[in-house]
């Protein structure tokens, strides 16, 4: 690992307890106990992830809403203060520059949280695009620690340490609260498919990490009775994949559009112009030629990214993510295939080490939504 690799506030905890990896320029935990027990904790109880490596930019000023409506695809006018939504930024061709969650803290104050791998690119793009607007674009990544607490027992766990009634915060709503002794911002969001909160420990640079460490330890302690597990990037990846959520750089990039990726709901085409809108309108008019689909393996074998997808002797596409699903206990993948083949229930094959292994096209998420995920029937 290079010497410039950055450390989060929780570095000492991670090194002591986890197998480490370098990810997007950060020393990060890949797993503590193991991917499977961490994954299972989030699906059935609660888990906590350090996601401080993600990028965070604050947008303030009179024209914040207009600026964000121009540079992002979702409808920022519909976002009320203390709400969040999932969105994307596009290039002029409609290709996805990044996907992220945007929170409106106040009428003229927004926080955008994007992928760690795109920190530099996104910030520079936002700055560049903001020049004709009366706004301030400030990278606040270094001044905030960020955790995701995810799973059905999240509210019970966090309520023990948060100074606000969490049951009043609906999904995709936010609140400022005291967490132990620290000022925090909570957002009922996440990237696992489960209910949960993302916790921002404000005004806490990693040169003075004590607030972040105290909050992390307090949440772990509060969740002990619920079976909380600290979770690494390994489980973060299997959880988002099982939930059918895209990983930037794998499943979406500047060559894929939201329409192809099946996240068209973030591109509000009725909105006044935004960067990439014309390209999306054109693509929609001409017909979307390929689609992201879920593949569930029908035979033994674990699909991985960039494997060929075949159907009746013809190569039709390629996987973009693939793993073993701890809940389904079989291989699952995401792939792009031509629209005419993107039908639920269609049988295809994935080429794994020169063998064609049978798979079926399935709907996202991969798991049974009555048993798992934020909409489960308890």
């Amino acid at each position, binding site marked *: 690992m290079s010497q410039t690799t950055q450390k989060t506030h929780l570095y000492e905890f991670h090194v002591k307890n986890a197998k480490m990896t370098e990810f997007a320029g950060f020393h990060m935990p890949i797993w503590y106990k193991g991917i*499977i027990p961490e994954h299972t904790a989030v699906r059935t109880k609660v888990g906590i992830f350090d996601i401080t490596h993600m990028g965070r930019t604050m947008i303030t000023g009179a024209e914040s809403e207009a600026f964000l409506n121009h540079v992002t695809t979702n409808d920022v006018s519909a976002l009320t203060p203390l709400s969040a939504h999932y969105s994307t930024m596009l290039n002029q061709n409609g290709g996805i520059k990044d996907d992220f969650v945007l929170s409106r803290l106040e009428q003229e104050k927004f926080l955008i949280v994007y992928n760690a791998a795109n920190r530099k690119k996104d910030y520079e793009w936002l700055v560049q695009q903001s020049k004709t607007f009366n706004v301030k674009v400030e990278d606040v990544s270094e001044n905030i620690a960020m955790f995701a607490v995810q799973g059905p027992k999240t509210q019970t766990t966090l309520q023990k340490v948060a100074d606000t009634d969490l049951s009043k915060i609906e999904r995709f709503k936010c609140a400022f609260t005291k967490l132990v002794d620290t000022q925090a911002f909570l957002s009922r969001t996440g990237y696992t498919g489960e209910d949960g909160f993302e916790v921002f420990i404000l005004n806490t640079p990693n040169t003075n990490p004590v607030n972040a460490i105290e909050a992390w330890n307090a949440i772990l302690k509060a969740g002990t009775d619920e079976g909380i597990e600290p979770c690494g990037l390994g489980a973060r*990846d299997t959880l988002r994949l099982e939930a059918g959520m895209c990983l930037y750089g794998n499943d979406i990039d500047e060559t894929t559009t939201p329409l192809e990726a099946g996240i068209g709901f973030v591109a509000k085409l009725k909105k006044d112009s935004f960067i990439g809108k014309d390209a999306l309108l054109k693509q929609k008019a001409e017909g979307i030629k390929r689609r992201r689909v879920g593949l569930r393996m029908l035979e033994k074998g*674990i699909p991985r990214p960039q494997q060929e997808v075949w159907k009746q002797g013809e190569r039709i596409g390629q996987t973009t993510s693939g793993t073993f699903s701890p809940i389904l206990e079989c291989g699952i993948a995401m792939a792009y295939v031509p629209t005419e083949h993107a039908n639920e229930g269609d049988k295809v094959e994935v080429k794994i080490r020169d063998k064609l292994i049978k798979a079926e096209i399935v709907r996202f998420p991969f798991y049974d939504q009555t048993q798992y995920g934020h909409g489960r029937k308890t």
Partner: protein
Amino acid sequence: MRTLDYNLPDELYYSKEHEWVRLEGKAAVVGITDYAQKQLHEIVYIELPKRGSAIRQLQTLGTVESVKSVSDVFSPVSGEVVEVNAELAESPELLNQDPYGGGWIAKINLTDFKKDSQNLLSAKQYTELIKTLEE
């Protein structure tokens, strides 16, 4: 993890690619070492060799996969695969739980173990190798 945390029985031979060899008459039972299983962690799939197939030392004997990674298993010896541990297909976790027992991969009838052994390590030599990998 420190080298002391690995179980490396004295009576086995080891390959530099982290397989072990236990001699049983003119045959050898082979598998992956405790170091290998701990590095892979949570093995969820194995592609086993075919019974009756001829294999040369360092050829691919099979493939093991954890949730995140894929690794080839290289045959530490040359010969004919005479038995395969079919139980691993249903219970690949045996490779983690009992790498030298229930996690054995194949039994190979040896062609020239004297020649094979030139590329194999003793437990002591293998321990030294792991120490260098962990530095």
